[in-house]
């Protein structure tokens, strides 16, 4: 029996906004991570889900044409960031994974505390986005 094709116009229009909102919130969560609840893992999952709702609302092919990214590469780059931060402190003669922080005056944002741990978190973020999307898309693509 063939189901009639549902009309998901509303969903598709709404998802465009919702996805952006989720994405923005995920970035907030990622940056809040150092001293508040949040961080690379949660931010990464959130970003992955913001992309996934797009895949849900539209079909795989459409989104594949729009987002031409190989998410597996994200895992490699992310791990590189994470271990890289550890190694950099080693190159300066400190112990592995030693982290540094300082406060900076940035335009618009005002006084911001930046840490090298943020770079590590960025690595985690990229790994989580890459891994979550790779897993889910791989299973989804196999449906034939």
């Amino acid at each position: 029996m063939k189901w009639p094709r549902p009309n998901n116009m509303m969903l598709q229009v709404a998802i465009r906004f919702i996805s952006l909102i989720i994405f923005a919130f995920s970035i907030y969560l990622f940056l809040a991570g150092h001293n508040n609840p949040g961080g690379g893992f949660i931010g990464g999952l959130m970003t992955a889900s913001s992309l996934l709702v797009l895949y849900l609302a539209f079909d795989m092919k459409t989104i594949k044409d729009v987002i031409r990214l190989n998410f597996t590469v994200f895992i490699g780059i992310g791990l590189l960031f994470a271990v890289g931060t550890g190694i950099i402190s080693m190159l300066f003669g400190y112990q592995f994974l030693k982290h540094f922080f300082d406060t900076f005056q940035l335009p618009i944002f005002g006084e911001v505390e930046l840490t090298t741990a943020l770079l590590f978190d960025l690595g985690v973020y990229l790994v989580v986005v890459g891994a979550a999307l790779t897993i889910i898309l791989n299973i989804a693509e196999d449906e034939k």
Partner: protein
Amino acid sequence: MEILVAILIGILVAIGTYLLLSKEMLRIILGISLFSHAANLLIITMGGLKTGSPPLLSEEGSTFTDALPQALILTAIVINFAVTALVLVLSYRTYKKNRTDNMEKLRGNEHE
């Protein structure tokens, strides 16, 4: 409170064991994941279920919760997440290739 959680952990382990002993792959996967949830709950309970302020924010709170178990289960949950994803994909592939999800039939025999 600790006793209630301990009972909960016991129930989770019991259900997990029951599911693990069944034949269908998906039930087994659910069983392992319940098992790991029980382990995570146990870790957080072992740190003490205190209602204090989170340990990160400031030095103002008079009571604070032990941060280490939280860090531990965060790691454990992430690992569990990855492993569960892997097992799901693996079981799906096994099902496709062997055309059965019954572990009894996946026993493996000498002549193949």
